[in-house]
């Protein structure tokens, strides 16, 4: 478990409504600092600037899907070490297993509960080395 608490989250998501709900959930319920990125192609720059504790990626996005972005992050030294949690509506167990095998820290299926989301993220955070 990392020594510091989980406070900075960067979320890459194209749907503006979900962006709003996640921001409200993490800021109001979880008391965290949130950076939302709507365009996945700008995500790596945004992460480099924001320096989050953890990254949340949406799976299906029009410009670039979550797994592709994840692979690109792993090629860049500044984002390589960041723990990544996927938020997905695909939700098949096999897909989730595949993500974990790729090195993702965890996966949360849509729809998630904004009341529980901060706790779910903290649980994943607690399991990290």
């Amino acid at each position, binding site marked *: 478990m990392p020594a510091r608490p989980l406070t900075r989250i960067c979320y890459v998501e194209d749907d503006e409504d979900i962006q709003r709900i996640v921001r409200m959930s993490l800021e109001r*319920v979880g008391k965290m600092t949130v950076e939302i990125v709507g365009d996945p192609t700008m995500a790596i720059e945004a992460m480099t600037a924001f320096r989050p504790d953890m990254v949340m990626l949406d799976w299906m996005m029009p410009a670039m899907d979550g797994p592709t972005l994840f692979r690109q992050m792993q090629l860049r030294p500044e984002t390589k070490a960041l723990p990544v949690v996927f938020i997905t509506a695909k939700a098949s167990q096999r897909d989730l297993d595949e993500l974990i095998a790729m090195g993702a820290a965890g996966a949360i299926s849509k*729809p998630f509960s904004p*009341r529980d989301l901060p706790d779910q993220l903290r649980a994943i955070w607690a399991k990290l080395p």
Partner: protein
Amino acid sequence: MNHSTTASGTEPALRSAAAAVADRSDPHLVLANRVEQLYSQLPLGIAATVVIGLIAALELREGRIIELVYFWGSLLLMVSALHAALYFAYWRSARKVEEGEQWLRWLGIGALAAGVTWGFGASVFFPSHADERQVFLAFLLSGVMSGGIPLYAASWPIFAAYAAGIAIPFTYVLATFGNRLFAEIALLVPLFYGISVAIAYRLNRVFHSGYRLRHAYGKLTEDYSVLNQRLEHQLVELEEARRQVEASGRKLALFAERAPIAVLEIDAQGIVTAVNHAAELLFGYAAAELIGGHVKRLVLPEFHADFDNNWKQLTETREPLAGIKIRNPRRDGIALVCEWAVTPLVNPEGSIVCVIAQGKDVTRQIEAERMQKDFTSTLSHELRTPLTSIIGSLQLLNSGVVGELAPDVSELTLVAERNGQRLLDIINDILDIEKIESGRLTMTPEVLTIDDVVREAIVLNQAFGERFKVRFQASGELPGRQVSADRKRLLQVMTNLLSNAAKFSPEWGTVDITLEERGANVRVGVHDRGPGIPDNFRSRIFSRFAQADSTPSRQKGGTGLGLAICKRLIEMMQGRIGFEDRAGAGTTFWFELPKHA
């Protein structure tokens, strides 16, 4: 008998062939034929004896001892009469063939008697007569002796006995007469005897083999006619078989010709030898264009390596291959996906006569499957994304993080959240059942401790129970009992059963969760104190969209898919599921899973 034959290459072969033919004759029948020939000449012999005897008697009568001539004449007549009697007895006998040797013996005795009678005459009358009569007697005797050759030629021993009867006394008389000329003649008589017997022997051999051959050929003819009949019969059968083969061939050709699937006949080298009409339609080639060319023309070049592997396997194992999907180019360049069944026809020597390939166009089917998968995936995403926003917003409102709501507003947002959740449940259930029924739901089995799963399910559903003011209570722990199951799916089943039990339990009631061992299975029971299952609903409780029609159960919500999903999931985990009435009131739903060994 073969002394006249010359040595030539073919003769031994001919001889052995003749011997083989002669061997087919029946020796009994050959003997019977010879006996019959001997007897058939008997009247001639009797007549000759009587006539010659009479002439001799007349001639000798002028001699001195007339009584002796009468005695000899009567002796000759008696021998002739006995011969006649033998002749008639023979022709009247019904057992000529079986008793051939017997008849031959009788005839031999008769011939010896006749010979002795003539010999007796010679020895008695020769010394007592003058020179002319002696010449007459000598002439008579040699005539009688040589006349015996054709008569008895069919059996040389009979002739030998007959001639010996004449020659021995006559020789004796000549030798003891005291005259030098007669003594010399006495030396010649045995020589003539020997020559006569030799001639008789040779004739005997000729007759014998003649009869043998006659019989053998008769038998051969008989055999040939039997063989001919058999051959004719087989020919008819063959003709019938040929007709049947032709008919089934036509039938098969018709099957292939009219079949809606492409049928190709290919030789062991991969050259197409025949195609049906469906193949022409499917690939856009005329039969004449395909026949004579390699079947690889119908395989996209990038799949040639795969094709070669399959073909190698086929020709090596000679086993049929089925379900092979190959991308086949049409003549117009469009690639089809066809599913092929390929069957080699192998002859009894083990080599491939031809290969029959039957192909079905599955391009559309594969496209439809892909579209269905895409559709489900898209539906899943497109429905869940807006629901995430709706339910998420309502949950944030209801949680109070954006401020306290007026009681009326709060009541409405709770209704909205609850129904949003319900809509989400329906979507999840529909997606689940669709996945199960299309065979796309995969299980990830792991070894689970059943106690832990049950406890986890209770914790997860505690909040739901509290909403219905129902308490979950576990009893009958089975520490350490393990099952092999998909954890997430097993929790889904437990959640379904627990939420059903909570929904139908009276307020402040308890739902009991029990664990017990049943043979090789572990049984989990969920017992409620609800109203029970209506009779008319029992038979279809595990069907899709099954809900009891009574209003209260409708009001409880649910999709009517939950138990159908539970049943399919449990069965996919090699278990079974059921329900029974609970003593007192209420219902028990249970499922059993095999214990992990």
